[in-house]
């Protein structure tokens, strides 16, 4: 025994020396201790990028950027793979699981924790360090939002947040002062009451509140609640503040100043606003402005969300480009990703950008701010004014399942059959197990 121990001890020193030598060699070769290779002089090969199929403007922009990138990188072939938008995230995950990952995929906010938990996106931090890639021009909130568990999951060309759209024509006709950044919820309700008129199919609604999670999260935050406090390990729906927040939404439906969810579910709240029968619309980010570009029959403008009892709160939407961890061509993918979020890349898509450019220099440039469309609809300032009050999405690895559970219970609130005070505590009973690791049926 003693002899064997001695033998093992004799091997320890040479083994340590060899290990150290190998490590030094590897570090020398890669230029870092993170395992990524030294930056190649030239990238080549094919880069496949998935793009949700519901946005023709964005698809056209990706093709335009790919073509420009290929001109400057003759050895690279960028293919844009348009994937149906319904359950897009699930489809991308299936591609990755099936061993045919896209090199770059678009995803965003609520999926970030899931992406990190399942480890299917490349952490970009080592690449940023290796290339001394400057992130200083990006809004800090953007980089913060794209970082989870100390990993930079992706980069983006734009950010977005929830705002309020209003029909200026209806406001002028009713002689009501239009919304301002100083509006509170009381101001919103008072104006909505003044704007509501008529009945039946010719009724004009003062406002429409779209009952999806980003909109009611905003309301909860503005009332001092939090859907998933303690970093997503607790349920916050049953707090007094949350109940009050939901009551404020439900009272809009009950009083008739907003159509109820069942009344707008078929055509959607945005479509109802587009029909010209609604004074104010809460429930969308800047993508709605893009949808409203061709509206001629009324004038519309953007304002920040009205403030709740503890101030304004608005969901911070982040779409991003991530590189699949199992990508066969990470270097070319990284180059193309950098190109898409570069000043050159973002400027190319400025006319069709649906959010606010992620680079401060471009978002504050005259080219963006003085665009006639932006000026006419005030389609930048309310977003910039909302940035300090933006809340990042709850980062839950099983967000889809948790939110399905929440929304199933909220249905009876939206149909006005039960009160928030009755339903919200039930939500916490139902989803508490889902917020515990391994507590979800089928998961764990």
């Amino acid at each position, binding site marked *: 025994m003693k002899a064997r121990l001695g033998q093992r001890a004799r091997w320890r020193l040479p083994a340590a020396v060899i290990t150290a030598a190998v490590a030094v060699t590897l570090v020398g070769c890669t230029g870092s201790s993170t395992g990524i290779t030294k930056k190649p002089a030239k990238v080549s090969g094919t880069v496949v990028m998935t793009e949700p199929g519901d946005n023709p403007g964005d698809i056209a922009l990706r093709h335009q950027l790919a073509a420009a990138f290929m001109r400057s990188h003759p050895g690279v072939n960028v293919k844009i793979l348009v994937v149906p938008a319904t*359950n897009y995230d*699930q489809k991308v*995950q*299936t591609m*990755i*699981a*099936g061993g045919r990952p896209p090199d770059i995929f678009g995803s965003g906010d609520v999926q970030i924790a899931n992406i990190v938990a*399942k*480890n*299917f996106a490349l952490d970009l931090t080592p690449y940023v360090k290796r290339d001394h890639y400057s992130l200083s021009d990006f809004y800090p909130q953007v980089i913060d939002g794209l970082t989870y568990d100390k990993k930079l999951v992706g980069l983006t060309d734009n950010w977005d947040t929830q705002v309020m759209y209003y029909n200026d024509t209806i406001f002028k006709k009713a002689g009501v002062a239009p919304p301002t950044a100083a509006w509170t919820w009381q101001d919103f309700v008072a104006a909505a009451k003044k704007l509501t008129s008529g009945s039946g*199919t010719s009724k004009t609604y003062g406002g429409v509140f779209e009952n999806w999670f980003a909109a009611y999260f905003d309301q909860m935050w503005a009332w001092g609640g939090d859907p998933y406090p303690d970093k997503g390990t607790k349920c916050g729906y049953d707090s007094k503040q949350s109940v009050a927040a939901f009551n404020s939404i439900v009272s809009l439906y009950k009083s008739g100043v907003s159509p109820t*969810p*069942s*009344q707008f*579910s*078929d055509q959607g709240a945005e479509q109802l606003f587009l029909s010209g029968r609604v004074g104010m619309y809460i429930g969308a980010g800047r993508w709605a402005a893009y949808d409203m570009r061709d509206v001629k029959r009324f004038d519309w403008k953007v304002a920040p969300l009205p403030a709740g009892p503890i101030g304004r709160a608005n969901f911070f939407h982040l779409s991003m480009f991530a590189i699949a961890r199992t990508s066969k061509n990470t270097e070319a993918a990284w180059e193309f990703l950098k190109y898409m979020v570069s000043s050159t890349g973002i400027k190319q898509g400025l006319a069709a950008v649906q959010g606010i450019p992620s680079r401060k220099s471009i978002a504050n440039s005259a080219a963006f701010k003085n665009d006639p469309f932006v000026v006419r609809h005030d389609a930048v300032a309310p977003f910039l004014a909302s940035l300090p009050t933006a809340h990042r999405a709850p980062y839950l690895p*099983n967000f*889809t*399942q948790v939110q*399905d559970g929440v*929304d*199933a*219970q909220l*249905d*009876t609130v*939206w*149909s006005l*059959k039960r009160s928030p005070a009755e339903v919200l505590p039930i939500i916490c009973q139902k989803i508490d197990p889902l917020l515990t690791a391994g507590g*979800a*049926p*089928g*998961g*764990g």
Partner: protein
Amino acid sequence: MATAATEGVIAPSATRPARARPWLTRERMAGFLFVTPSLIQFLIFTVYLMVSSLVISTWSWDLLTPHRQRGFYNYTTLLLHDPIFRTAFKNTLELTLLTVAPGMILGLLLAMVVNTRLRGISIFRAAYFLPVVVPTVATAIIFRWLYNPDFGVLNWFLGLFGLQHHDWLGSPSTALASIAAMSVWQSLGWNMTYFLVGLQSIPEQLYEAARIDGAGAWMRFRSITWPLLTPMTFFVLVTSMIGSLQGGFDSVYLMTQGGPGYSTYTNSFYLYSQAFRYFHYGYAAAYAWVLFVVIGIVTFLQFRFLSKRINYDFG
């Protein structure tokens, strides 16, 4: 009595050993070659996948991270600790009750109506069959508008009688029945066609003889039509039950997404959610096996107790 053998006719085997006929004859070989493509397809796409899903049903697996062996954990969780599974199963049974019997009765009535030799009757038959070939997406859009609480035809009709508007798909008490009504409308063409085939295979002379004997319409239906339709009725019942117990995925997905609440969650919709929304593949596989066994038992019971009552005698 002497047999041929005992009378001196010697069997060939008595003189020389019979040469064993080779098992793999040319005919057998040809037969195997003919079925080989189907057999390979069956082994790969049915047997292999079923065995794989059985193995996966004992795992916790999200496709992206390595699986963990869980034994019967998925099955016990599903059957004992998952309230949504129980709700989905109950809803599926309700949907089965609401679709199978009405679908069959209406299908039979329709088949009897169009089983005439009037000029242009084929146009009516085609018209009634049309819902079968209309994509479910289009049907769902039409029915969503029919059920719309403000502008729907159904509520407009109720309004004519002074009745209040109702949120058909938004109310837990009527959402499932509203989906069932759409499913019945969709399947009516199939059921009508099957029953029409059954009706047209009944010999006309049986009805003539019954008329001569003074049997009225109801007597002819009870004594001739119904007994001789039992093979087709049994077929429609078994296939409708199998389809319904899976829980009409497309109509639920398009009409309500399982809501309001869990009031229209059915087996197929919850299974889909577990597999393709939450990436719980092991759990979904266990669910599929539970569903397979339940449907198998129901079908077996139908064969066991109903097949004896089927009348195949047209003579």
